[in-house]
């Protein structure tokens, strides 16, 4: 079982908060697609006959590629790998690209899941973040998309400066009204070296308020819970059978190939990452060289990653798995480190599983770091 992630590093304009890798110059689109196909081909032996269950176009803005190009890429995956019978094929798309015509055409391709970057249904929020679409485009595209696609995910952002709890509830309720089966929702995060950070420093935009973000996080959990969504990962909510199969693979330590500039790969022991630069990426592949660096994970690294990702999910951290994969020492260590957090009601044990409590959810990085195993040197 494996997945393929394909990074499409282009956007129409830069959202102020974004620190992903993308370029707003679309000139090299064709060369890049060729390079992606080349990389898919060059790496065909890496999966050692594992079946590909998910193909995911992420970005950047993959909906900027024509359907033709997308099909070309999917075709090359089929050509060089073993693909499961009904793979999940996701396209990240922005509302401004999703005209009725485009949606209909997309529905005729093998893409069977859309992840739509709505973020908010209010123009003031969209402007503040410099999103390329309007509130109307957001509403219209969802209305149409739900007619042609069953499996849709919507992105929403909370904790935006100026976003009141009232407006936040309206955003959630609007998504629910379209009967969307999956929602990814993120707290607006001020990443280093982004425009947002700069504007906040200059006082042009109010800083995000953790207190408000926490409140809105809990509103979200409550609202979606009431509508039978399962909170299966810190920022992901899905109806049963609609969890993102691609993303779940990340949190469950499964193998995935990352194709494209800045994309990351993992094979259980090694993590690899491609160069974060479109021209360098294209040049390298023109010479049949993979522009990738790798690192091999130590046992402690693997343990740390499992704890870190496990705590974010509904599956928690399994003590049996810890014992099986890392040995009794690690299990003992984990239990001992957890005690304090269990006492403070940030963690709890459910049979063999260590999970974060409601109170602990928004603090889970700090908790995970406490459970980490490191060598002081």
């Amino acid at each position, binding site marked *: 079982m494996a997945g393929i992630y394909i990074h499409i590093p282009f956007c129409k304009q830069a959202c102020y908060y974004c620190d992903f890798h993308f370029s707003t110059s679309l000139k090299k689109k064709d060369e890049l697609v060729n390079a992606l196909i080349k990389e898919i081909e060059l790496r065909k032996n890496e999966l050692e006959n594992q079946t590909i269950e998910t193909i995911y176009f992420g970005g950047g803005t993959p909906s900027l590629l024509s359907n033709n190009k997308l099909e070309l890429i999917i075709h090359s995956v089929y050509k060089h790998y073993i693909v499961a019978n009904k793979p999940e094929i996701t396209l990240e798309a922005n509302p401004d690209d999703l005209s009725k015509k485009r949606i209909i055409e997309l529905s005729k391709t093998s893409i069977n899941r859309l992840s739509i970057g709505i973020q908010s249904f209010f123009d003031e929020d969209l402007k503040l973040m410099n999103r390329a679409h309007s509130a109307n485009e957001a509403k219209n595209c969802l209305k149409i998309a739900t007619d042609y696609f069953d499996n849709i995910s919507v992105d929403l952002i909370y904790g935006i400066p100026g976003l009141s709890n009232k407006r936040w509830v309206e955003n959630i309720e609007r998504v629910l009204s379209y009967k969307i089966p999956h929602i990814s929702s993120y707290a607006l995060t001020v990443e280093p070296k982004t425009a947002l950070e700069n504007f906040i420093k200059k006082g042009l935009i109010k800083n995000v308020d953790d207190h408000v973000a926490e409140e809105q996080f809990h509103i979200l959990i409550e609202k979606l819970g009431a509508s039978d969504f399962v909170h299966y990962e810190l*920022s992901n909510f899905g109806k049963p059978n609609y969890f993102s199969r691609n993303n779940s693979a990340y949190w469950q330590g499964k193998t995935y190939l990352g194709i494209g500039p800045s994309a990351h790969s993992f094979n259980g022991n090694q993590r690899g990452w491609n160069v974060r630069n479109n021209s360098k990426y294209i040049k390298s592949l023109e010479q049949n060289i993979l522009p990738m660096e790798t690192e091999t994970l130590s046992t402690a690294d693997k343990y740390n990653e499992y704890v870190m990702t496990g705590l974010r999910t509904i599956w928690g951290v399994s003590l049996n798995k810890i014992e099986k994969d890392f040995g009794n020492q690690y299990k003992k260590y984990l239990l001992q480190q957890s005690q304090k957090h269990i006492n403070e009601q940030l963690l709890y044990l459910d049979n063999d599983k260590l999970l974060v409590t409601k109170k602990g*959810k*928004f*603090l889970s990085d700090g908790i995970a770091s406490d459970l980490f195993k*490191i060598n002081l040197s």
Partner: protein
Amino acid sequence: MQNLFYRDILMKNIRNFCIIAHIDHGKSTLADRLLDFTGSVTDREKQDQLLDNMDLERERGITIKSHAIQMDYEYQGEKYVLNLIDTPGHVDFSYEVSRSIAACEGALLIVDAAQSIQAQTISNLYLALENDLEIIPILNKVDLPSANPEEVTDDIVDLLGCKPDEVIHASGKTGFGVDNILAAIIERIPAPKGNPNAPLQALIFDSVYNTFRGIETYFRVFDGEIKKGQHIKFVATKKDYYADEVGTLKLTQVAKQSVKAGDVGYLITGIKTAKEVKVGDTITDFANPTTNVVEGFEDVKPMVFAGIYPVDTEDYEELRNSMEKLQLNDASLVFQAESSAALGFGFRCGFLGMLHMEIIQERLEREFDMTVITTVPNVSYLAYTNKYPDTPITVNNPSDLPEPSTLNRVEEPYIKATIITKADFIGNVMSLCIEKRGIITNQTYLTPERVELAFEMPLAEIVFDFYDRLKTVSKGYASFDYHPIGMKTSKLVRLDILLNAQPVDALSALIHADNAQNIGRKMCEKLKELIPRQQFDIPIQAAVGAKIISRETIKALRKDVTAKCYGGDISRKRKLLEKQKKGKKRMRQVGNVEIPQQAFMAVLKLND
């Protein structure tokens, strides 16, 4: 072979000298040149700052310990032995400097041709003059484009009352003038006087710890001689030993049958701990002791005290072992077990000064791999209670201060501070010293642009961020030196810090009552900055007795999670959290609050 040749060197052919200079004026570099020029080091042995053997000394560019080295030099057909005694370059070690000076007949006074005379130049010069040393003024770094030879020569002439042509122009960098310096050492510095036939009288000016051979004692013989196998006695400690080995100090030690009057050498007796060898003590013959001890012996007294605690309480015994080992080669370090409600078991340590304290902390980390928490340093006070108003209680720890209601008075140590600065900065320097409770006692214009200011001020004020402030207010154009002048009555209070309503004894500080409000407020602000937010609100309060004088709150951490964690985020995030975890390992949990190492020293960084 050389040894044989020089075996019977005559006293008239020995010269003992030291080099005194303000820090960075080129003492170590010039010493290197002297060694080169006299062929005392082979090319293979060459290394910059040769005499500074500790890594710390080379890195920080300061001489921490005294060093001695013997050079052979032929001058106008005669063979001479030149003993160079290098002195520490920091006021924390001024007693050692004074003993090194007492072992010499002459001193090279080095003055940077661009910087001119600075505070340490003057204080060391006075020490040398008190010991009747012949001063050879050297204008160093004349190769510098910014050198100002005429003016600086005038400054030196004014200071010493010498003639301009007595000032030797030199460059430690190029080697220029080194021959003239050597000639002056031989011609101007008097040969040692002393009676080779009188009972042994030698001055201990330093000691060095050697893992294999125990303590090596460095001495200067004034009268008589010290022979291999001799039964000797240390006057101040009243202990006696057999001289297992004596010899002179070339780059490596050269064992001899005896070291005679006028010469400088080393002694090995099998002593294992540095405490037994006191700098300034007199060595004499056991059976036939001298009636003249070398004057000026003092027991070095620590000036600054602080608690040192292991970050991990389990490392207490290991810390004790490490401190004991450090003490073997640093007799000026004193310590005593103490316990703190907040930090558990640790040690109250006495240091010669702030630099000494930093050095110890750094050596613990480097040489013994011990990560420690150092608490707020304080000086040593004398407290008197109403009940026994004439009996002083020594207060080396804030918790030793008697209850305010029972307290009659407190005395604190004062110093005389000498500051040399540019005339432009007099105003700034004065305001700083007045803020630090200083009283100006003298102001002398060395030149129209350079002023020497003398202050009397509490030693405690030097401990709290004085150097850094002085540097800032003078834009770096101020030099500073001090010496203790005794105790004075003072209005002292203990400032307590409460975290989560619990007093944290390790954060208490003894301060002047007039500063309490201000320091209390700044402490709260600084701690708010240094203590990471935790899962609950943490009130910080500063109190004097029962009275809360300032407060702040560290707001609870609301959000400590990254929203996205997909393929590429995983390893980046793992590394970030691993780093966080490492940081936490260096924190100390007090009650339920985690306090980082540096918060315990917050009071020293209030103006950053």
